[in-house]
């Protein structure tokens, strides 16, 4: 029986490799998606981070030379021209009088806080003004013979449990999302072609006229498609490994490392998903009456696994999602990159469910192939 399946498998692989366009479409995704993501991240980080030397507009600077100097030491300076951010710091006219008399001297920050690109810079300006506040306040206390520590009633010390690799939470979600999606989308064209396509080319009837069981045919098709999905997964992770090195993660204070161990575990975790994905794609394609219809159905059906993965990425309903197939596997991948312990129970359970789905879809497809309605697309 194994021999039979392996012959059928070879036939499927040969068939698929002849359809260069489907193969190329899959490969494009695997190479293109990680690179595109890295480019987007790099651009996004550069926009979100406040530039090292922040140029703003400072009005009435002559009223507060010491404050201006303090900000300059934090690389926030008055500037002219294009690089100046749309942030104005205006120093009030009575700044000196109030400062001398120990009253609060007013400064105004004029900026649009809804502007995403400015947010980090505005925060930085506010933070540094607070620092100036406490520096002057401390010195005022010292000048009065008081230890400035008393103004710090509590000493807050944060013990951050994160590591440089785990801090990239959201980014890791997106990175693993791209890996999971590769298992569904890379082989999509191939799956439709080997089922609905084969039917339209009238070679399916020919195949069924041989003395072989429909289960064998379906298994061979699923195997070939899943194999291609795994290749896609390997390609995606390997490309990611190199592309991610180019992103200036350290600007945001974390890093993402895709190493060899991760690639291997991702393959193991991805295997059941690949089988399930392939059987699902084939089942839906046979369900459709034509090639075109199959394309629409598949696109609609793939929305479900993508949503599962999205939920993990955006941390939606984590308590429930962590037990769901696909979501749990993606979660395990994230934990591995973070260097944390793998949630074994969740992973095993969801993998079992995933394999169960694979069995169900395979069974349904093989039953369908016994119906003439399906075989002839009536």
């Amino acid at each position, binding site marked *: 029986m194994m021999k039979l399946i392996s012959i059928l498998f070879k036939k499927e692989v040969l068939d698929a490799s002849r359809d260069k366009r489907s193969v190329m479409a899959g490969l494009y995704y695997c190479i293109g998606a990680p690179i595109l993501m890295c480019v987007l991240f790099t651009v996004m980080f550069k926009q979100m981070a406040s530039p090292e030397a922040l140029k703003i507009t400072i009005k009435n600077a002559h009223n507060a030379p010491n404050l201006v100097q303090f900000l300059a*030491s934090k690389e926030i300076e008055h500037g002219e021209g294009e690089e100046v951010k749309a942030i104005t710091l205006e120093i009030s006219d009575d700044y*000196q009088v109030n400062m001398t008399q*120990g009253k609060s001297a007013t400064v105004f920050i004029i900026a649009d806080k809804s502007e995403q690109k400015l947010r980090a810079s505005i925060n930085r300006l506010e933070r540094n003004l607070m620092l100036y506040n406490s520096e002057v306040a401390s010195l*005022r206390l010292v000048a*009065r013979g008081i230890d400035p*520590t008393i103004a710090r009633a509590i000493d807050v010390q944060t*013990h951050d449990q*994160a*590591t*440089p690799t785990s801090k990239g939470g959201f980014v890791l979600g997106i990175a693993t999302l791209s890996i999971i999606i590769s298992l569904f989308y890379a082989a999509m064209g191939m799956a439709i072609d080997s089922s609905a396509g084969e039917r339209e080319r009238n070679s399916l009837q020919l195949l069924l006229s041989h003395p072989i069981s429909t289960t064998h045919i379906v298994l061979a098709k699923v195997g070939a498609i899943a194999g291609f999905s795994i290749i896609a997964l390997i390609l995606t992770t390997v490309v990611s490994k190199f592309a991610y090195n180019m992103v200036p993660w350290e600007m945001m204070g974390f890093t993402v490392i895709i190493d060899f161990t991760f690639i291997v575990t991702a393959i193991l975790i991805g295997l059941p998903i690949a089988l399930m994905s392939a059987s699902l794609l084939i089942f839906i394609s046979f369900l459709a009456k034509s090639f075109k219809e199959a394309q629409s159905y598949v696109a609609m059906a793939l929305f479900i696994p993508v949503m599962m993965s999205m939920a993990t990425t955006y941390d939606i309903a984590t308590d429930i999602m962590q037990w769901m197939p696909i979501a749990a596997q993606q979660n395990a991948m994230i934990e591995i990159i973070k260097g944390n312990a793998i949630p074994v129970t969740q992973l095993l359970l969801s993998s079992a469910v995933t394999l169960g789905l694979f069995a169900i879809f395979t069974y349904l497809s093989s039953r369908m192939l016994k119906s003439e309605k399906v075989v002839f697309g009536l």
Partner: protein
Amino acid sequence: MKKPFNIKKNLVKLAAVPLLISAALPLRAATSAVELAPCYAKHLSDRVQCGTLSQPLSDEKQDQKIDIHFVVIPAIKPLYPQEAILAFAGGPGQSATSIAANFERILKYARENRDIILVDQRGTGKSNLLQCGLDDLASQFAVDDTLLGLDFYKEDTIECKEKLATDLSDYTTPAAAKDFDAVRKALGYSKLHLYGGSYGTRIALEYMRQFPDSVASAVLDGLAPSNQSLLAIGGAIEDSLNALFKQCQSDQKCAQAYPNLAQRWQSLLTQVEQTPLKVSVLHPRTSQPLDMTMTKSKLYGAIRMALYAHPSRVLIPLAISEASKGNVLPLVGMMAPNEDGMDLALGMHQAIVCGEDWARLSGADKEKYSKNYIGKTMVEGLDITCPIWDVKPVPDSYYDPVESDIPTLLLSGGLDPATPAKWAEVAMEKLTNATHLVAPTATHIVASQSCANKLIAKFYDEKAVGDFDTSCLQEDTRKQFFMNINGPASIADKE
């Protein structure tokens, strides 16, 4: 029993050399042979790794062990997993791991790609801390140190020695250097980039001498080499203070608010030397009434500590001016944070100063260093305490200038009251691949107050100053003096 305390005693105990790293103010590929546990350092929220390594006390005392405590701050993006930065603390006597947050700030850019190793040098922090108690603020304020005799210092030292019951000869710089390389080896790094600040430069240079193959590059910030006596610090203090007076004089508003500051300082010193100023003040934190006897050594000590960083320097003209009017409150405020002797390990401090600096003093040296007040106080104090500690002098070869072609960057602050730029010239005599950069307006520890933190990261990457732009070190980092009790502003500004 608590003994009365005074700054002078403190000066003796600490040998008045707090070459501190300024606290004024923020997936390992190398395979480790030592057990590491996740932990946290003070004021550093990032999770770090802690470990301990058992080291022989000396080559002769192989069976006596000392536990060396260390911390590894992981790199953000470890591009060079086989390399790490080893940072040395100052003092002598400062615990490197307890100021991890300061090092993290100074080495922020360098840490992006490399781990940072911090080791508590033997005798400090959690590596067999050699510490003796200091008196509380109330006693520090009250005592009239001019009335205390030599016996007082002797007794105090003997008491500390009995408490520690340790031969300090095992705690000198050359003895400690081996611990650092043992930690490197245990952690599995092949090459280190060194950062030493203040006294830390002395141990860094010794490490370069003993383990040249372990060092990829070195940044030495505020040089205190073995061939430069720490007792010359008195001159540096005076230079730094005079520069401050000059700065005030050349600033129209400051000159107007505080005329003849230098003369007022001198007459204030003479005044308190003749009759210490006795006033009653409130405790800087608890507001309990306290007696304050402002003697020359307390006055000098307070002003001297304020010279270390720009934020505290701005108060000096006000403090001197007020004190000469009889108001010592600004001085009281300045003294409060130094209550605990800046957390220096006194025993270890004495091991270094007695074993390395005092041991080598000739009569002529003593005379030379005694030309200024701090130097004189130190020489007098060490002459009493060092014979009691009885630290074995380090070998003569220790005073040879370190010979090396390791890429080295030396940094000095033009206003440094502890390690002046000329000490760097002494250090680099035989460093063939060294560059010395001076930030003219920086005080002690250039990396904490200028763009030097960026230069350090670049230097570790390129191992040469080459063509990178160092002009940012020229930027004026001084702050405006307090013109009155509320700040640098004065109504005269409003035209």
